[in-house]
């Protein structure tokens, strides 16, 4: 019945996992890899949540409780207290005052039961220790392949019950890796695990963008010897070139309703913004400048498009009405501001700004225009918001390696996402997968 800090809890999990693997249990790599998530920083106010391993978790191929714990910790809002020694499950009737005296504001416990048909019954229960209240739980029957997703859904449920905001753990990210001379487009869980590759190409792939329905990805492929914009259905693999005009075609951005794509084309000379239907039809020029206009990003209401232009000399971020008009400059600090991303709640813009030689993710409060740097690294790229607007994923370089990171919007909690390949880049956070209850 002892508490330990979260790090010790993770180590305990790792040792258990290794012991299982050594004992001959077929534990998939992903279960072990989960523990490579490195979380740094201290949150301003973190809710202490007591939890332990789910009952019979070792009989399932996924380290469910560790996935839930890592999700909660990455959000920056929770501190996990290890309650493994208490061997609780969702049917327990814990004495909540006892847990309160141990410093827990919430307590959760669960179980995994293998079913005869090969699926798993995953259950969990949450208690609000402070309020002395039963918060209910979830019961999910899933095939082995969806166990990780079940853990993320449990984390989402806990997040919403304890913070009042919708969780975004049961979502997917897309990113690009280069290994062995090949370029891979990858789709993974929001924690970087369970990666699958919808595309492998001998040529570079950049700028993946999720369709709002989470089923298609637009990206730039160089497979024809020049950049063209391709839209691919993730589950079927069906793909089509939606922009393959003369010159370069790049920087696809889906309108929030999924009907249009903003792209950068050079077909009329220079790099300019165009709008087209998601099928590539009805191309219409949006900007008219002798400068570079690129990296379109839609506002969540679909009314305006943020983009990068060097019309004033160096690259700065501007905003233009989606129907056209005179662009307004948005960034004024620094000489190099690129890669705008708008938060789905419409309050924030993340972007990359060059500061004393380094490229760092910055956050602008759109209402006030106030700006702050979220990192102290030097090679940040491609910021993208979680669908609940509470976290940002981005690429950077640490110790000579390209890595994916998440940060909270206050910059306090950062997590280095586990990926199995050396060079990873171009992350983009996908939409919610489950419809709102």
């Amino acid at each position, binding site marked *: 019945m002892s508490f330990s800090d979260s790090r010790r809890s993770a180590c305990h999990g790792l040792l258990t996992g290794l012991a299982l693997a050594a004992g001959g249990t077929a534990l998939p790599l992903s279960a072990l890899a989960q523990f490579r998530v490195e979380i740094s920083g201290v949150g301003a106010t973190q809710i202490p949540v007591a939890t332990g391993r789910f009952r019979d978790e070792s009989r399932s191929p996924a380290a469910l409780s560790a996935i839930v714990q890592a999700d909660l910790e990455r959000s920056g809002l929770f501190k996990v207290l290890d309650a493994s020694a208490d061997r609780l499950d969702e049917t327990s009737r814990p004495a909540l005052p006892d847990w309160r005296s141990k410093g827990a504001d919430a307590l959760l416990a669960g179980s995994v039961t293998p079913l005869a048909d090969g699926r798993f019954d995953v259950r969990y229960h949450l208690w609000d220790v402070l309020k002395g209240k039963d918060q209910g739980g979830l019961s999910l029957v899933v095939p082995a392949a969806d166990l990780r997703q079940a853990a993320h859904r449990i984390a989402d449920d806990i997040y919403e019950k304890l913070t009042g905001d919708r969780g975004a753990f049961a979502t997917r990210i897309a990113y690009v890796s280069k290994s062995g001379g090949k370029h891979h487009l990858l789709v993974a869980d929001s924690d970087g695990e369970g990666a699958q590759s919808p595309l492998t190409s001998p040529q*570079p792939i950049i700028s993946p963008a999720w369709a709002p329905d989470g089923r298609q990805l637009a990206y730039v492929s*160089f497979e024809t010897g020049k950049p063209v914009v391709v839209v691919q259905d993730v589950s079927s693999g069906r*793909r089509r070139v939606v922009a393959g005009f003369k010159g370069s075609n790049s920087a696809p951005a889906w309108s929030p309703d999924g009907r249009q794509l903003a792209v950068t084309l050079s077909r009329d000379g220079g790099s300019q913004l165009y709008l087209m239907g998601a099928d590539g039809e009805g191309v219409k020029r949006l900007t008219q400048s002798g400068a570079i206009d690129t990296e379109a990003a839609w506002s969540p209401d679909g009314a305006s498009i943020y983009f990068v232009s060097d019309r004033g000399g160096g690259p700065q971020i501007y905003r233009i009405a989606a129907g056209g008009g005179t662009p307004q400059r948005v960034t004024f600090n620094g000489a190099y501001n690129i*890669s705008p991303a708008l938060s789905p709640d419409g309050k924030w813009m993340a972007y990359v700004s060059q500061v004393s030689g380094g490229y760092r993710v910055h956050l602008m409060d759109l209402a006030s225009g106030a700006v702050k740097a979220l990192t102290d690294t030097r090679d940040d790229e491609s910021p993208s918001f979680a669908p609940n607007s509470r976290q940002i994923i981005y690429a950077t370089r640490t110790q000579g390696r390209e890595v994916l990171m998440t940060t909270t919007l206050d910059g306090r909690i950062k997590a280095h996402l586990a990926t199995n390949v050396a060079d990873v880049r171009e992350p983009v956070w996908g939409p919610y997968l489950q419809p709102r209850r």
Partner: protein
Amino acid sequence: MQRHLTRFTPRFALMGAIAAAALLSACGSSVKLDENAGKPAPISDASIKSGQTDANANAGASSNVNQVVLTPKNDDALSGGLTRVIYFDFDSFVVKDEISAAIDGHAKRLTANKGKKVIVEGHTDERGGREYNLALGQKRAEAVQKSLTLLGVSADQVEAVSFGEERPAVTGASEEAWAKNRRAEIKDR
């Protein structure tokens, strides 16, 4: 006057040596490679396979890589030794005077044969954003395209495209490496 002087700088002597080496190495290559150089590969299931990483699955696609790596040097050798790589200064899109002889040569080659087409690929060094660099590379490619069309080459004969920072000539984070990557390449189609 300035132009004559630059021809005798050590850098130019080095470039000559590189060109000569490229000529020699190209002699051993089959002509077939050059026929395929710069031609876009069609998008098909054969060239790109989903969800597979083994070499066998990408057998059709791996030839693409060979084209890309070998094209510039082979092209130099097989088109009368005209340099096909044009270097740019940092943050610059100006086609330097010292390259004008090569631009003239390509312009003559293209005006003499109106059926001949080239693709100009713009490239940048690794610093900065990928999409912004793609646009900067496009600017370099279009500067070379403009140099050619000003000399009478038809706009239909030259397509300017960009690879941004995605296909560096050399790897490394030094000024020397970056200088070699800030370039445009003229490739026959």
